[in-house]
């Protein structure tokens, strides 16, 4: 019996900013992991990765990362991917910086 396929998201870095981005089902690049397309099928994952790799003027280094479904959308599994959704742990820089600002504006 084959092992169950671990769902994936396509992630990369933005060409100009370097910030982490995720490919959405409607073919945008989102800064938020929970907006990513959660891909449950291996063949489809390869197609989506090809689609990402073709966007050379938008993103750098796309790859497939393990993910799981959560209440607000896909969540990372590995701690490396969890860090990529936030930013470094020594300063409130990167995505968590924007998150903090958005919260202030509420």
């Amino acid at each position, binding site marked *: 019996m084959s092992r169950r396929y671990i769902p994936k998201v396509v992630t990369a*870095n933005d*060409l*100009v*900013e*370097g*910030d*982490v981005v995720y490919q959405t089902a409607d073919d945008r690049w989102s800064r938020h992991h929970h907006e990513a397309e959660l891909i449950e099928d291996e063949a489809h994952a390869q197609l989506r990765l090809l689609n990402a790799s073709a966007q*050379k*003027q938008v993103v*750098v*280094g796309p790859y497939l990362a393990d993910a799981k479904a959560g209440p607000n959308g896909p969540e990372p*599994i*590995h*701690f*490396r991917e969890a*860090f*990529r959704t936030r*930013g*470094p*742990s*020594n*300063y409130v*820089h*990167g*995505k968590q910086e924007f998150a903090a600002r958005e919260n202030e504006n509420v």
Partner: protein
Amino acid sequence: MYKYSDFDAAFVAERNRQFRGQVERRLSGALTEDEFRPLRLMNGLYLQLHAYMLRVAIPYGTLNSAQMRQLAYIADRWDKGYGHFTTRQNIQYNWPKLKDVPDILDALGEVQMHAIQTSGNTIRNVTADHFAGAAADEIEDPRPVAELIRQWSTDHPEFQFLPRKFKIAVTGSPNDRAVTRANDIGIRTIRNDKGEPGYEVLVGGGLGRTPMIARVIRDFLPKADLLPYLEAILSTYNLMGRRDNKYKARIKITVFENGLDAFRDAVEEKFATYRSQFGGADQALLAEIAAAFAPPAFRNAPVDAYDAALAADAAFRTWAGTNLSAHRNDSHAIVTISLKAHGETPGDASSDQMRLLADLADAYGYGELRISHEQNVILPHVHKSDLPVLFARLQQAGLATANAGLLSDIIACPGMDYCTLATARSIPVAQKLALHFKALGLEEEIGALKIKISGCINACGHHHVGHIGILGLDRAGVENYQVTLGGDHTENAAIGERAGPGFAYDEIVPAIERLLRAYLAERNGPSETFIDTYRRLGPAPFKAALYPAEAEDRDAA
């Protein structure tokens, strides 16, 4: 300090102009990432986890105050207001935008700095003793020779596609503060029987996946022979080194696989030819360079203010005890300014701190600064009478931490907070260790200790040569920290020994506490340092402290 010649300035400007064009073509889509990547790496531009990172060389760790101010300006204008000083005497900016990098490089060019050959399979930024030109124990200032090597190696056509990156370090003192034995080539200034200065040349050191201590390839090389001899080593390696396997491509493996004797024979054969070809032009250049490194005219004044402060001010006395080193001029001292305030990121300096350091260098340090491989800033020449006021100004800025050489003076690589190659974080481990032992109040009692932390096997944090080394790994999707013991980064360099299984993120600080409590219990009084105690007793009592449960099992059996 060395000043760019017209040739140097034109060269850097031209390289920057080319890179500006390359960035434009990347942004327009004319270049793919595969095409652009080697070009950006040649200019020190990496892509890390959350952003781009620009690595700027600080040749042999020497900066003047104007350069430090420019580094602060760049941090404010194009980054997040700080920079990270690294073990290879570089500064890294963690948040530049691709489109801004050409402007940053131009701004660096204005103060005679660049990011060329801070990446790629070339000869990297040449590192040197951070006390160069100041240390009391120095035979000769290593920087003129380091600059000579830099000029020879920058854009050297034969050495742009070496099998792998190549790192050279130079020290002018018998006490090795430049970790020469962990470099591809280490150059140690020594004297022969006749008292003439020359070099002991070491080859094949390196950390990373396969750590090795460099071995002596030439026990005494006359000074004038240095460049032809280096050229002989490099071209031998260029031919003999492996290109089939990245992990076997460093010169340490070339030397190891062929044997030191065979490698040396090949080098000596080439050297015989090169030596006559150099024909002394390099020595004429060296003489010119050396003139640029003439020491400042050291001020002659009474040092009473210093003696008075030592007697009156306990905080000053403590700081003087840890952060001052002996200067070759009796009335001066070398000041280590710690970038390791407890709980801060080792090696980080804010732009405000950089500007203050530049001002202090102008006011009290003849305008000179150094960056140490231990990620601290050095004022190499301070008249002792200026030390009390310098200390007071450092205190106001939170830069007077009296911990140089102590537990919290930790080397830590960026780890998984920044680095794409990381398998675990290292910065928060350093922060937690420093805060924990400060809270326990044990740091001074523990005394001299080198803790070095890397976030993966590449060993950028030098963990192999730490008295206590910590290596962050990914064990089945969880951060795990392996401890090595007994490493040494000095002239007696040694690779630490793995103590046993790793510790989880939450367990590593308590484990180090058990280890150091065992040291306190075992040592022959406060004068016996951790590393001396370890050498006397071997690993057994320390392993028992790290793994108490296993020790109990053994006792029960």
